[in-house]
């Protein structure tokens, strides 16, 4: 285990003897199924759940020769921006004492930042790979929706989430992506992208060549961001410019509403996905008798933490009679608008750049009592999930107080090679 609580379990899973990841360790977020090894999703509900099968990405890691050194701590069911909602205790940021590591893949980013694993897998529903990568000073990639199989990922909001890599450098993150990407007959939402991504080769794109790269900067994503974050962002942009890239400002009016749309959609999907945890087929059983509904409600009260209850209830509310058109339908309109906006902005820029998070890592405990403020911190990352696009977070430098700042680069669908090339000029 680690002093900063990065792992929930340290069962070692050995991979095959050779392969592109032989001799390397890849930690796996605890919402990704590992056959015979406990998979808790950071929840009391799944405290003793042991999957009878491997997620596709885990099979691919083992085939590639990776050793899995453990399952990483996370916000319960992926719900959080700080990795403080885990039933197994909060994670500390190993590179910024007293601060959160970001969430919800905070354990995965922390074990990489601390050097306790060579690389890690996280999952990103609204920024859950990019946020902790930014807060811990490492690299994280949220792939295009459909590039990586979600088979064996315990679902939270399945129209938004993707599994992706976290690593110390862009090249290593790209190597890990290369191993896990590709269609899967067990996940009908995966796409064969071989026309856009020949051989699914990503690592060789990390050549640092940004000569002639055109970068769009959405001004909306800088408005209201922390001053130290904005300064560090522009320093990194200057660096890219000095290496031959050019940038221009772009307008993305829809992103002003993206974070609200994201939460309505994510919570609605959560209310449906988490209905399966009733303590009969799996999950904590209250051991109650009597009315089934009351018995399930008791089991779910005990098994779920407060953030999970909050989101399931808000999702139930948004989908309930009389409110569906007001919240859910409007959120879907906003999602379509965000997609159009991104398509337009990317029609005359190769990538879009912004700070990954508008704020530096928060102090521990600071945001727990104020869910709305925490939700709003996801303003820069959630639009990308609504648009199903790929994005990378690379270290941009540090604020004057020595806190890590991440730079986010967003590309067109299946444009992973472009964001990897651009990101590799910085890390």
């Amino acid at each position, binding site marked *: 285990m680690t002093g900063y609580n990065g792992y929930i379990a340290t069962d070692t899973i050995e991979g095959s003897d050779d392969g592109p990841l032989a001799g390397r360790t890849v930690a796996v977020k605890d919402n990704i199924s590992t056959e015979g090894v406990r998979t808790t999703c950071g929840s009391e509900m799944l405290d003793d759940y042991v999957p*009878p099968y491997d997620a596709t990405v885990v099979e691919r890691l083992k085939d590639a020769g990776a050793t899995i050194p453990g399952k990483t701590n996370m916000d319960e069911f992926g719900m959080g921006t700080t990795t403080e909602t885990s039933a197994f205790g909060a994670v500390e940021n190993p590179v910024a004492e007293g601060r959160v590591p970001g969430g919800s893949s905070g354990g995965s980013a922390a074990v990489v930042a601390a050097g306790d694993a060579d690389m890690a897998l996280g999952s990103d529903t609204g920024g859950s790979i990019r946020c902790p990568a930014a807060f811990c000073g490492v690299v994280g990639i949220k792939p295009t929706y459909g590039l990586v199989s979600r088979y064996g990922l315990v679902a939270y909001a399945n129209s938004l989430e993707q599994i992706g890599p976290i690593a110390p450098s862009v090249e290593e993150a790209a190597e890990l992506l290369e191993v896990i990407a590709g269609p899967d007959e067990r996940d009908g939402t995966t796409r064969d992208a071989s026309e856009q991504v020949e051989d699914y080769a990503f690592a060789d794109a990390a050549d640092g060549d940004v000569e002639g790269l055109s970068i769009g900067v959405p001004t909306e994503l800088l408005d209201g961001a922390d001053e130290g974050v904005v300064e560090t962002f522009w320093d990194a942009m200057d660096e890219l410019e000095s290496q031959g890239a050019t940038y221009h400002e772009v307008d993305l009016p829809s992103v002003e509403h993206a974070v609200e749309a994201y939460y309505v959609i994510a919570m609605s999907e959560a209310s449906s996905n988490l209905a399966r945890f009733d303590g009969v087929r*799996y999950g904590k059983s209250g051991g109650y008798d*009597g009315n089934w509904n009351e018995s399930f409600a008791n089991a779910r009260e005990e098994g779920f933490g407060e953030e999970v209850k909050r989101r399931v*209830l808000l999702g139930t509310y948004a989908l309930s009679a009389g409110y569906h058109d007001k919240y859910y339908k409007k959120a879907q309109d906003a999602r379509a608008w965000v997609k159009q906006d991104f398509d337009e902005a990317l029609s005359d820029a190769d990538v879009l750049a912004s700070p990954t998070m508008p704020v530096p890592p928060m102090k521990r405990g600071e945001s727990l009592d104020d869910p709305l403020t925490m939700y709003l911190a996801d303003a820069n990352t959630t639009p990308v999930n609504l648009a199903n696009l790929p994005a990378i977070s690379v270290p941009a430098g540090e604020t004057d107080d020595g806190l890590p700042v991440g730079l986010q680069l967003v590309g067109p669908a299946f444009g992973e090679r472009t964001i990897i090339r651009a990101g590799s000029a910085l890390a």
Partner: protein
Amino acid sequence: MSDNAVDPDEVRHIADLARIDLDEGEVERFTEQFGEILAAFEALDEVPETDRDADLANVMRPDEVRDGLTQAEALQNAPESEAGQFKGPKVS
């Protein structure tokens, strides 16, 4: 923004629909927070109606018999089972 956008009875009703029991402290906190969060969601009223031109297609696979979990594997995480079946709470 009105603090009374959601009242405690409404929170209890939603919790009932979601099959999650809440204690009184949670009802109180959620009533206050939901008022604030739902007020923020009202910003969606400003979203223009947008054409959704997504070319969605059903993805189907042939319906062929193939290996699945064994009965023992399917039951291994059930808190209670009996005679190879899941065991739920007794109906009163």
